[in-house]
């Protein structure tokens, strides 16, 4: 398809482009993705930072309503350009993976002392539960960094020196949906934009033919908090995460109906745009020009998205490395896709892998049953992701984050109706482990420490808001200045909290 804009005479086109720019100027830095109604004060990104040294370069002001996702300069020099966030939905137990607690083994089976329960809120623990020792036989230190890993992660030991472990993470929410919302939107309630939306709002996309924020789910289910964890909240919908699916259309509505083919679709879009150009002549509304461009972009996306999502062309050794299962919505496929997407310039790739809620209520999730399978599912693929990014020279500028929404208790869960042979742990907001690797993060570090039973952090605790502040920081965004004015106040991802964890920055 030829560029429809070329159908205008050169002078006509020049006139409209000039008009368009002028309109933008008139709007006085209002970043307008709207039909003249909702106007978004870009100044809310810029305004507060004007007086500071690290203010956004003036170049960043080249926003047009035609492309609100245009790549923008960061607020200061970024280390990372892109993020891959691997969310382990359901919250994996840190005590069986990273946080080695020999003391806890000694307490196995004893009554939990009352002092540990006082003033705490739990989802399911009641009365006096018993302590539960680590449900693994082998915890060892690996790599130069001497990172602790359990036998459940045999592959991951190969890359521990690339990784920083945040061992004393903590959160405020002890139920899945609110805790996932807190991780991704900065609050445990619905209605706020997700991290990926904030990042694409702040930085735009590096690829015009792909959405800036893409989401991949595995584990059979979407996260507990639903699509709100990649929603755009009060930010314009253009910043919401676009879910890529492995069954059906890769992105909703991207497939041509059976009666179309590429050429015909090109003709249709060209005709639409021809009629729209006539409309433009009559009404002279710059928004029509935007629509013309969006139809062109849609046409291009129809090719670029399925291409990006098609892993068949990857060499055999790559498939082997990730352990892919083509045609399935597998975590391994999604890790490979994540690499492909960041390679193509997608700004934020969010993975959700469901199935870590180890209460010991059913076999699939119990620590002495299904938990091991879960670990197998992710171990090889997440290791491959780091190696693959590294071998392509992408790891330096890609931040990889792995973690759940909270941790698990050192006490055994004592639900009345659970089968006696299964063991599990309740939700624990006091301590969990998150790891980060790549862009902007020191490699080979274990940061933070929990008490001898892994219940609470005792040193270098990192709150979820601190993690968010740190992620934004690596991207060159100041979490206190990436704001959006809504309902009378400036909102930000970290609400009124968050401190950058400077100790882990490269």
């Amino acid at each position, binding site marked *: 398809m030829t560029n429809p804009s070329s159908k205008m005479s050169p002078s006509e086109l020049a006139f409209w482009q000039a008009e368009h720019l002028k309109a933008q100027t008139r709007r006085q830095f209002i970043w307008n993705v709207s039909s003249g109604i909702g106007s978004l004060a870009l100044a809310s990104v810029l305004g507060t930072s004007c007086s500071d040294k690290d203010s956004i370069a003036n170049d960043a002001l080249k926003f047009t309503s035609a492309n609100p996702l245009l790549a923008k300069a960061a607020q200061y020099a970024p280390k990372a350009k892109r993020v891959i966030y691997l969310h382990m939905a359901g919250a994996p137990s840190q005590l069986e993976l990273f946080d080695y607690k020999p003391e806890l083994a000694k307490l196995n089976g004893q009554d939990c002392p009352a002092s540990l329960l006082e003033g705490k809120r739990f989802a399911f623990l009641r009365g006096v539960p018993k302590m539960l020792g680590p449900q693994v036989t082998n915890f060892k230190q690996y790599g130069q960094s001497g990172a602790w890993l359990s036998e459940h992660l045999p592959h991951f030991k190969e890359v521990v020196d690339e990784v920083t472990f945040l061992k004393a993470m903590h959160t405020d929410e002890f139920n899945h949906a609110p805790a996932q919302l807190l991780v991704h939107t900065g609050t445990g309630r619905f209605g706020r934009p997700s991290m990926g939306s904030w990042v694409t709002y702040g930085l735009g996309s590096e690829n015009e033919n792909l959405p800036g924020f893409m989401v991949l789910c595995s584990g059979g289910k979407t996260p507990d908090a639903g699509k709100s964890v990649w*929603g755009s909240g009060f930010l314009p919908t253009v910043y919401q995460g676009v879910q890529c699916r492995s069954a059906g259309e890769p992105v909703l509505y991207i497939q041509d109906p059976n009666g179309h083919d590429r050429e015909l679709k090109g003709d249709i879009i060209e005709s639409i745009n021809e*009629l729209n150009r006539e409309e433009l002549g009559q009404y002279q509304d710059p928004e029509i020009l935007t629509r013309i461009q969006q139809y062109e972009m849609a046409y291009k996306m129809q090719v670029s998205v399925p291409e990006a999502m098609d892993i068949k062309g990857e060499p055999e050794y790559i498939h082997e490395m990730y352990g892919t299962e083509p045609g399935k919505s597998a975590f391994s496929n999604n890790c490979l896709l994540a690499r492909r997407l960041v390679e193509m310039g997608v700004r934020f790739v969010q993975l959700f892998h469901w199935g870590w809620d180890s209460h010991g209520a059913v076999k699939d999730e119990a620590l002495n049953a299904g938990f091991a399978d879960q670990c197998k599912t992710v171990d090889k693929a997440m290791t491959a992701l780091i190696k693959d990014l590294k071998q392509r020279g992408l790891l330096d500028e890609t931040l990889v984050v792995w973690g759940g929404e909270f941790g698990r208790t050192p006490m055994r869960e004592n639900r009345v109706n659970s089968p006696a042979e299964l063991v599990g742990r309740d939700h624990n907001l006091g301590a969990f482990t998150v790891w980060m690797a790549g862009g902007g993060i020191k490699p080979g570090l274990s940061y933070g420490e929990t008490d001898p039973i892994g219940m609470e952090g005792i040193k270098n605790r990192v709150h979820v808001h601190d993690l968010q502040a740190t992620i934004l920081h690596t991207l060159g965004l100041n979490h206190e200045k990436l704001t959006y004015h809504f*309902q009378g106040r400036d909102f930000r991802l970290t609400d009124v909290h968050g401190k950058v964890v400077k100790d882990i920055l490269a």
Partner: protein
Amino acid sequence: MRMNFKTILLGLSVGVVAASVGYITSCSVSKSNKLSFNNDVRPILNKNCMSCHGGVKKAGGLSILFREEALGVTESGKPSIIPGDSKNSEFIKRLTHHDPEMRMPYKKEPLKPEEIEILKKWIDQGAEWEDHWSLVVPKLPYVPKGTSWCKNEIDNFAFAKMKEVGLEPNPEADPTTLIRRVSLDLVGLPPTQEDIDTFIKNPTDAQYAKYVDKLLASPHFGERWAVMWLDLARYADSKGFEKDVPRTMWPYRDYVINAFNKDKPYDVFTTEQLAGDLLPNPSKEQLLATAFHRNTLTNDEGGTDDEEFRTYAVLDRLNTTFDTWQGITIGCVQCHSHPYDPIRHEEYYKLMSFLNNTADADRQDDSPKIYVGSMVNNDYSKYESIINQIEKMRGKKIVDDNDDIKTKASKILYPKLEAELSDIAAGVTDIRPDKIIVNYVEHGSYFKYSNIDLSDVYAFSVNYESMNGNHSIVEMHIDAIDGPILGVCKVENTQFKYFTTTKTDIKSTKGKHDVYFVFKFNTDDPRFKNNIYSPGNPDWFELHHRTQKFAKQSKEEKKLVLALNKFVEMQPQVPIFQDLPQSSKRKTHVFIRGNFMSKGDEVQTGVPGTFNTFKTEWPTNRLGLAKWLTSEENPLTARVAVNRFWEQIFGMGIVETLEDFGTQGAKPSHPELLDWLAITYRNNLKWSTKKLLKMYVTSATYRQSSSFSKEKLEKDPKNMYLSRASRIRLNSEQLRDQSLAVSGLLSRKMGGPCVMPYQPDGVWQTVYSDFKWETSKGEDRYRRGIYTFWRRSSPYPSMLTFDNPERNVCSNRRLKTNTPLQALVMLNDTVYIEAAQKLAQKAISKDNIELSIRTCYKKALGKEPSKKSLDALLALYLKTEKFYFNNPDKAKAMCGKNIADIPHATLTVVAQTIMNTDEFVVRN
């Protein structure tokens, strides 16, 4: 494009970035004039001082949000501002202090000399504070003199403003455009060809007014306006959070549609939704209206703290009430006094107290609920006759003829005891005669019946379900909760899968007593006595009399009872508001820093001091709150309402920030017009929304064409000064409805349960729920967009793409974006393909391609295509025809038939093209 940061700052300080024309505060100060705090002083204070000396932060002990605070003694021991004496006011000294550590604003650029002059003069004039404009009760303004262009007062105001900024109105839109515009605006559907033709023949004011009246009387009017309201009500068909299971809320949606159709006065509409249950003898409709605030999310996730989520719902209700009726964001005040607007921290909790006394408590069953059977237009005669037959069999009158069908059925089916009070952990709840099942009865929960004659009673029965039955008992106490025990019932385990009835003999006693049925765990295992496990949920209790009250049921009667029972079960139940009895009113505390776990001082109901006063004759409950909101002295309710409707009709509010009338929001572009409209709506039109809208759409301002001239684009890109009509992209509902309407697919069936039109497979995949999207059959696939099932965790994807809010929280306006994903929906979504197929089928004329295309175009847009457009479409037709000739399978798919009907397939492509043009997706 290079920008100058100073300009940005100036733009921000005015509050409305693009509103600079005519709104830049004058910086020159004349000696004699009295300064206006709002226009001259407040902008300087907000820009430079408020971030450190406002509601949240009181650096050095100084806050300038309220006058009494600002004049008070600061940490230095001296007052900062001395009215009438700028020379000795520390406030002024600090602005020019030589020591940078002392000079304010701290570590920032000093104020400009002219700004300091203003502040000095203001202090010398007495340092008077003024309420923000929106908090001053509107006064009827002088209506500017009109010209021949003006059709009603709106035009007088609009024209005067255009003159002021040097603009001229556009000519009137052509009749076809105007008819399409007003039809889409008022009923959300395109006009019929007949309507267009009638108007074109006789495009007079009278004819236009007649058409407007017709639209206002259409039942589809309510469907269009309900969409706007449901965004505010955060209406959805599921409960939210992890499980996000369906919840029957659609009867409330129908209430809103009916309210708009009946032109329910806005004050009545307001009162019913906030406090319908507190009106004297509330009707079912009034009770149903209170579902407005039961649209809050309920968290059914395992192991949640119900009180936490109940509290969250109450806070959300308060925020929503203020967003919806006052256009003031109050959410900030949950944690601290408002940083910009004069609302104090404790005032938030005083307001919250109005809403903190309802019986709902984040329960899984969403009780309390009502049956709304009689709201739905069903034929109940069959059930009426069953009731009559049973009455005859029983040989006595049981029901009251005035009862609605559900109450009648209830009286027949449940001649059992109905508890008055029950204590379930979070508080005390009525059990109403509507057979509300209480979920989550906990250890120690009780159900109370007052003043029951037990002389003839020998046993009681309880009907219940229980998961932990083997450990549970129900004790029957008399006179007090710990009074004498007459009997103990052992509960059996039903796995929460069915209800069972257990009968227990009791010790006999004489006379009337209060009876308490107490649910308990009968085990020492402490885990059970914590609030996570339930001993069982009762459905009803019955006392057995020695002398039979009713004759044994005959087989015939049993059959009838069963049929009636089934009918009752099928009736939709909707969560509503209902207050706890006075005796068990909840206490409301300030939450320190907004955290519900750290409770501060107890507060009583009250309203913020800067708003209209709460009259002593009003009840201190939600009804009083509604009276306060709708009273003449409330400065905001009417302004916010007329502005909201204005935005829907004119594309942008007079106050652009619909959601913020506070000091950080936009200033009104036409303040006098806003006040005139507010007063007219309330006093002259008696809150009639239809009359208000008629005024809007019959104005000359509305009827202008929407063309831009280069001059207008430059002077007023956002059309703030109304010198043309705005071009508005249709919202997702209108887009769908329009496509279905022009193609003839649209079902005009109104109301009732939600429908599931085509949705791509695999969109719903939510944890812990096997609820499925099952595409509706028949005409239900083609209902208006408003009837589409809305699931919060996974909303209808094509609508989300077109900027529908997720409906988790109150949403004041939909931003209108313009994205490639929207293009993909319009080009590829099944509903739009089907509409194109149908449109093509209707437009096709044999052997006349041009006529077919023209008909298609006319059906879609109500007019003939231009020569250029027609040529383009013809060219597309010929290309496409060739393509389908060579690809008959594709043709088959495109026309949706078993044969390759090439003309139909080809015209479908043309129809699709027309339905994707800017002109189709926008209303001009």
